[in-house]
Structure formats: C-alpha cells, structure tokens
C-alpha cells in the first residue's frame, strides 16, 4: 500500500546540501534549510538529554522507597527534565526544524524574510542551551520547571539565575523565529498564493508565531524579576515584604499556558498535511480548520489561571477561567472532527507518516478530553498537582506533539535529505512508540485520581501505588526504544537509503514541485499559483483521459 516511487537520479544535481561544503558553510549559512538542519541536530540532542532524565525518574519510581537517588537529586531530575523538554525541545521542535525548512517553500519564497536573524535565532538557542547544560552539570535547579516563588527566590540554593538566563536567551530565539514567520507569511507569498490557498501547515505556524511573539516576552520579564530578586534581594514576590507569590504565578502562567499551544499547533499543522495526502483528498472544512488555529491562539491567552484553581484565587475568578477553558477546548474538538471527516470517502494509504497521524488522532483526543476533567472546577481540586495532570499533558505533548513531529519528519524526510527511509522499520517504530506511550502514561491517570501527588520521589507511605508505577516504567523503556529507532534509520538512510524523487508521495504543496533535496533558492523559477490547496483531484487525475474512475 505504500505510495512512494523511487526514481534513481543518474546525475547528482546541485542542491542545498552539496552546493557548498565545509564547517563554516554550515555555521555561517543563511539558508533556511541548512538552519533547519542545524536546529534538528540540536533539538535532538536536547531531546535525548531530557529523555535520559525521564528514564532516571521512572527508574526511581519503580520502588516506593527513594532508593535510587537522593531527594535533592530527584528534585533536580524532574526540574531539568521539564525545563529541557519544554524550552529546549518542544517549543522549538516543529517550528525551528520543519517550519524553518518548509514555510518559505510552501509559500513559494526563496527564503525567510530575515535569513540572518534566522541564523541569529539558532545561535541564541545554542548559547541558551550551552548555558543550561553548564547549569545542569554544575549543580542544576530543583524548583520544578514552574519555579514558584517564594521557594525559587528565597529558599532554594540552586542555580536559578543561570537557568533563568539560559531560558531567557532561548526565549529570544523563539521570539525571532515567530517574527520571521509572521513577516514572511504576510509579505513573501508567491503570486497567486492567497490566504485561502495556503496549506494549513502555514496557518498553524502563523497562529503559533503570534503566540510566540506575544507570550514569550512575558516569561522573559518574569525571569528578569525572579533573577533580580535573587541576585539583588529585591522582594517583589516576598510575602515578608508585602510581596505576592500569586503575582508570580499569574505572570508565569500568562506565558506558560499559551506555550502549550506553541507546542501543539505546529503538530496539528503537520497532521493536517499528512491526513490530506494519505487520504488523497482536500481537508474537510478548510476554513474552519484555519480559523480554529487562530481561535486556539487567541483563546489560549485567556485561560492561564486554570493552573491556579487551588492556588488561592477567588471563586469568581475561578469560574471565569473555567468557562474560558471550555471555550478553548472547542476549536481543538472541531479540528479533530474535521480530520476524521477528511478520512471519509478518501483513498487511504498506511504509510508510516499516516500511522503517526492516526496515533496523534487517538492520543490527542484522549489527552484533550482529559483536559475537560481538569477544566471542571470540582474535579480539578482533587486531581491538580497529581499524576492525573502529568498524564494529561504528556498525552498532548508526547502523544500529540511528538507523534506529529515524528510523522512530519517521516513525511518530509525525502524532501529534506533526498533519500527514502526504510518503510518497514518506520512502521515498526510507530507501533512501538504507540504501545510504549500508552503503557507509560495511561496508568498515570489512575495514579492521579487515586491521589498520587506529583514530584514525589518516595511513595513508601502509599505502597499500593507500586503496580501502576511499574507498568509506567516498563512502558517508558519501550517508548525509549521507539524513539531511538528513527534516529538510527534516518541516519542510515542518509548514506544507504534509496534516492527519492521530487514528489515520492505525489503530495500537494509547492515544496513538492521542486527537487529532493531542493536547490539553495528553492525553486528554479518563481512559482505562480493558480490552484487551490490540496488539489488531490488534479494530482490523482488518471494518466489516460479514457480511464473513468469506478464509482463507489
């Protein structure tokens, strides 16, 4: 059922990979495609570091006693897992890799609006990442990735300021990426590429960029205030001076809630492209999906205090935020229904990218539905700060965002590398990831409702929880294997994979109208767009006009 057609290329054409060789041609590149690869290597590195911390956490939780690591070490492990995964993997992931590579190509441009700022963006990420690595290696942080005050300002002895600076710098990387995308999408679309003809991947990245631009500065200033408080003993959040610890929480979550939409929207964009291609039809409800992306971005800014229902906010405040949280759930639900409806009367192929998309559909739906539990005030009181929340956000971020990311990597790998990955191994990896993921995180919903709090390294007072923890840890090892496999076979394919044609999937989109890998300036001639998005009817038109497709 696989669709890809391999056409061996007799002569290696000049493309963005081979037009220039050498260390500096990469480190000083302004080509958005090379920068995307620089990011790919960097975020993969941090993904495995964050994943390593996760493995240690799960190992500790195999037994009720805190016997693998000391309490302080465990506290640093979950903190660093969170900070690395959120700020150095999930936030950049799709936008900085697939987004950087594809946004100009999908709209018919030669590059992003500001290529040098794009390179600066990567360097900022690297500097932030290096600083974070140094921080971790020289003691780390133990406040949780949420670094609530006054613990983080007045009580902990760990390296808050250094970690804060690292995240601040990485945040600017994120802001500049968003800035580049917004300006590019507004100003550099090819002739004929109207807003309604844009791939939904672009709409998703546009919405994501709005959030990056407007949200990230708020966490930046929050970090400045916390760092200033620690370094200069200011007292803005210190209750003994009359400061309000809740003010910190409001400022923190004002960014960190929209941040989760930064992490999921691009993945939704990827899944949209994959479902359309492997169902061979246009997306059902294009405008609804496009506007849902924007709606998620807008409403996402209005719900932050649903992280604070038991923090000491007023009942009336809680009512408002609960209501708005249901409002923000609606556009996501609409997207799920539209994706499902796209499958109807499609012609579905089960290649690896589509398997990841199916996985996304199921897991994101479950994760999103558990969000309804959390938005319900009466339930949230019981399950907040427990493993229920941990399970919820991992379903969305790992079951959702990472699945989408992997699906996208597989889908566009031929374009990026000019090679085909091994389909059999890819299907196997998708299955392993799906099974490992559910085994890891489903038991955590049960643990949470039963009362297991978060951030506990020792649960010897509740040994009855051990069974579920053991299942979860077992799942995490399977999941780890599932993640290692693609890294291995992608690398393998760069050397030994079958060469890919321009459009191995016969997919819609401007990026498929140029060679694999593309030339440095993307297109030999500037495209002029005269067709609608997802024109699969034209792409699948019969080769011989006499053939009449059989009706159902």
């Amino acid at each position, binding site marked *: 059922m696989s669709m890809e057609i391999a056409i061996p290329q007799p002569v290696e054409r000049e493309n963005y990979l081979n037009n220039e060789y050498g260390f500096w041609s990469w480190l000083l590149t302004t080509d958005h495609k090379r920068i995307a690869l620089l990011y790919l290597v960097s975020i993969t590195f941090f993904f495995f570091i964050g994943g390593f911390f996760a493995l240690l956490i799960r190992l500790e939780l195999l037994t009720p006693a805190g016997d693998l690591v000391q309490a302080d070490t465990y506290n640093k492990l979950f903190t660093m897992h969170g900070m690395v995964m959120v700020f150095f993997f999930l936030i950049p992931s799709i936008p900085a890799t697939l987004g950087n590579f594809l946004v100009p190509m999908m709209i018919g441009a030669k590059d992003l609006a500001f290529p040098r700022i794009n390179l600066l963006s990567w360097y900022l990420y690297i500097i932030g990442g290096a600083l974070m690595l140094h921080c971790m290696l020289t003691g780390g942080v133990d406040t949780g990735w949420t670094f609530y005050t006054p613990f983080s300002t007045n009580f902990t002895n760990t390296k808050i300021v250094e970690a804060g600076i690292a995240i601040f710098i990485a945040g600017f990387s994120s802001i500049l990426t968003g800035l580049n995308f917004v300006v590019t999408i507004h100003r550099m679309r090819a002739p004929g590429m109207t807003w309604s003809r844009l791939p939904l991947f672009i709409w998703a990245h546009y919405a994501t960029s709005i959030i990056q631009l407007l949200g990230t500065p708020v966490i930046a200033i929050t970090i400045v205030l916390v760092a200033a408080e620690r370094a200069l003993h200011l007292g803005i959040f210190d209750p003994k001076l*009359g400061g309000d610890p809740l003010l910190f929480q409001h400022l923190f979550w004002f960014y960190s809630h929209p941040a989760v939409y930064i992490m999921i929207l691009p993945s939704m964009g990827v899944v949209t492209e994959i479902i359309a291609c492997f169902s061979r039809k246009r997306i059902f409800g294009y405008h609804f999906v496009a506007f849902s992306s924007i709606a998620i971005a807008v409403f996402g800014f209005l719900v932050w205090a649903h992280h604070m229902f038991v923090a000491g906010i007023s009942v009336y405040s809680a009512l408002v935020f609960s209501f708005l949280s249901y409002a923000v759930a609606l556009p996501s639900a609409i997207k799920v229904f539209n994706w499902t409806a796209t499958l109807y009367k499609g012609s579905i*192929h089960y290649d690896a990218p589509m398997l990841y998309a199916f996985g996304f559909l199921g897991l994101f739906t479950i994760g999103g539905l558990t969000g309804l539990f959390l938005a319900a005030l009466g339930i949230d009181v019981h399950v907040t700060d427990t493993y229920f929340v941990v399970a919820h956000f991992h379903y969305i971020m790992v079951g959702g965002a990472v699945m989408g990311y992997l699906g996208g990597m597989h889908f566009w790998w031929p374009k990026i590398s000019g090679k085909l990955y091994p389909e059999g191994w890819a299907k196997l990896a998708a299955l392993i990831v799906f099974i490992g993921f559910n085994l890891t995180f489903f038991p955590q919903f049960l643990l949470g409702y039963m009362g297991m709090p978060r951030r506990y390294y020792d649960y010897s007072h509740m040994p009855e929880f051990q069974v579920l923890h053991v299942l979860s840890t077992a799942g995490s090892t399977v999941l780890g294997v599932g993640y290692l496999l693609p890294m291995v076979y992608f690398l393998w394919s760069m050397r030994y994979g079958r060469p890919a044609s321009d459009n191995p999937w016969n997919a819609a989109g401007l990026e498929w109208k140029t060679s694999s890998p593309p030339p440095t300036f993307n297109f030999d001639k500037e495209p002029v767009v005269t067709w609608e998005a997802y024109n699969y009817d034209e792409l699948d038109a019969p080769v011989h006009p006499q053939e009449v497709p*059989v009706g159902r």
Partner: protein
Amino acid sequence: MAHRVDALYIFLLVVTGMMAFLVCLLVVVFAAKFRHRPGIRAEQIEGSNALEITWSVIPFVIFMAIFVWGAVVYFKEHTPPADATDVYVVAKQWMWKIEHAEGQREINELHVPVGRDIRLIMTSQDVIHSFYIPAFRIKQDVLPGRYTVEWFHATEPGVYHLFCAEYCGTQHSGMVGSVVVENPADYEAWAKANSSGPLSASGEKVFAELGCSACHRSDAPGRGPNLQGVFGKPVQLEDGRIVTADENYIRQTILDPGLTRVKGFQPIMPTFQGLVTDDQLNELVAYIKSISTNRPVTPGDKIGANAAVSQVPGKSQPNGSQVQ
C-alpha cells in the same frame, strides 16, 4: 462531598469515553473502509457548514453542562458552614503543625470526630505548600503571608492519607501524614488526653503580653477599636471601603496596620511583623473570634487588590469511605 466529586467524575468518564470511542471508531472504520483500492479515487468534499455547526454546538452544550456542574461542586467546597469547628494549620518545610481550637497540638496528624464540620485555617511559615486529602477529594494551597481555608465533613471513621501537593523542596515527598477520623467517644477521649487549654485562652495571654489591651479596651473607648463582637462583622476603613473582619483581616492588621486603618481612629497601631509567630497569630485570631458572638459566613472580601485577599476555599463533606 467526595461522592459529589466522584459523581461528576463518572459523568465525565462516560461522556468523554463516548466521545473518544466515537472518534476512534470512526477513524478505524474509515481507515478500513476507505483504504486505497486501485482504480477507486477519493471524493473531494469541501466541507459542510451544517456538520460544522452541529459538531460545534453539541460539544459546547455538553461542555457547559460539565462547567456548571463543576462550578456547583466547587462553590459548595468553598462554602464552609457557619458553625464549623476551626482547626489551625501551620505548614512549614517539611511538616504540618495542627492546632485545634480546644488547644490540642499535633504534628502531621489531624484527629477529627465523625460527622463534624471542620474548617481548616491554614498558613505557611515559608514556601507554598498544599493540604491534600485524596479520600475527601479536597486540596488547597497553603500560602505564606495569609490564610487560606478548606473545610470537610468526615462521614466514616478511618485513617486517611494527608499529602503535601505543592512542591516545596527537598522533603516534599516526606511531608505526608494522616487524617484520623474517630467516632465521638474515642475523639473525646483523645481530646481530653491531649488538651492544653483552648487556643483562645493562649490568645488572650498573647493579647495581654503584647500590650494589645492597652489600646483595644473592652470597657471604655480606647485609642483602638473595641474588639468585642468585631469578628465577622463589616468594618469601614479610612478610605471608605467596607470589608469583613475575617481571619485574614485580623492577621493583616496585626502585621500591617497601615493598610486596614479603621475609620475614625488615628494611625498609631504599631506593626508586629517579626514580633509575633504564626502560632501566636493563630492564637490571637482564635481569641478575637471567641469574644465575638457572630461567626463569619460569607467568603472573605478583598482587602487590597492582591496579597491579603481573604479566601474561604472551604471544603466538602467527604464520604469517608472513599477509596484512597
């Protein structure tokens, strides 16, 4: 009220289970039925406004039902009965200090009799903690610098887990304890054996020791307001605002008198920040409550825009037989 939380939970399980099942079923069925077959092409369907509206409105209605139900449960959890018994909780890294109104003190254990409404008045000496009793389905963050409140009503004797649910440092996992629910006779026996005089009596001593009675006289007009009967009643402040004299108001006035100056009195009350411990503050609050005939019912009013917001996130009547 644990059963109320569980009822909503089961409703959510059913509803979301159905939605998830529906989506998964459709995906599986479509993926199988419409898999690629040679010669058969996909049908290009733009969309359907009717369908979009349907699957927007129906979920929204369901969401609103869940929202309202959740809000009702939450509101009940935040409205302790007027005559609930007060228990003061002081959280510190990494233990829970419990002070009963009758004077019993406990560490990491909370003894309560079956069938009584218990209101926990909680504060932290250092960082943010969270008082979580899973069996009762209640949780409330405990903050430094102010009181937060939760309440419950245990219906079954037993011993139930108490966890700290807000990360607070090295021994966060060790900040666990028990809520011991006893039948009335056993509780009385425990209370008698552990009593050291009611909290309000200790408070009266502190009131005298710190010199409060010099200005806050109950026999004649003094330099400060007469505190007899003041607890729970509205107070008019200098700037015209009217606030309720609840626990947070009393606490804040002692620590920061400038913010809550009562109309008609000179601003001469000194601050006791640093001169009075959290335990002594609890005793003073208990004392001032004891010399009032009324007890507060309403959720606290806002004092200032931020820090000293008085909360009554009180809690439920848990069904004590809940599974932990």
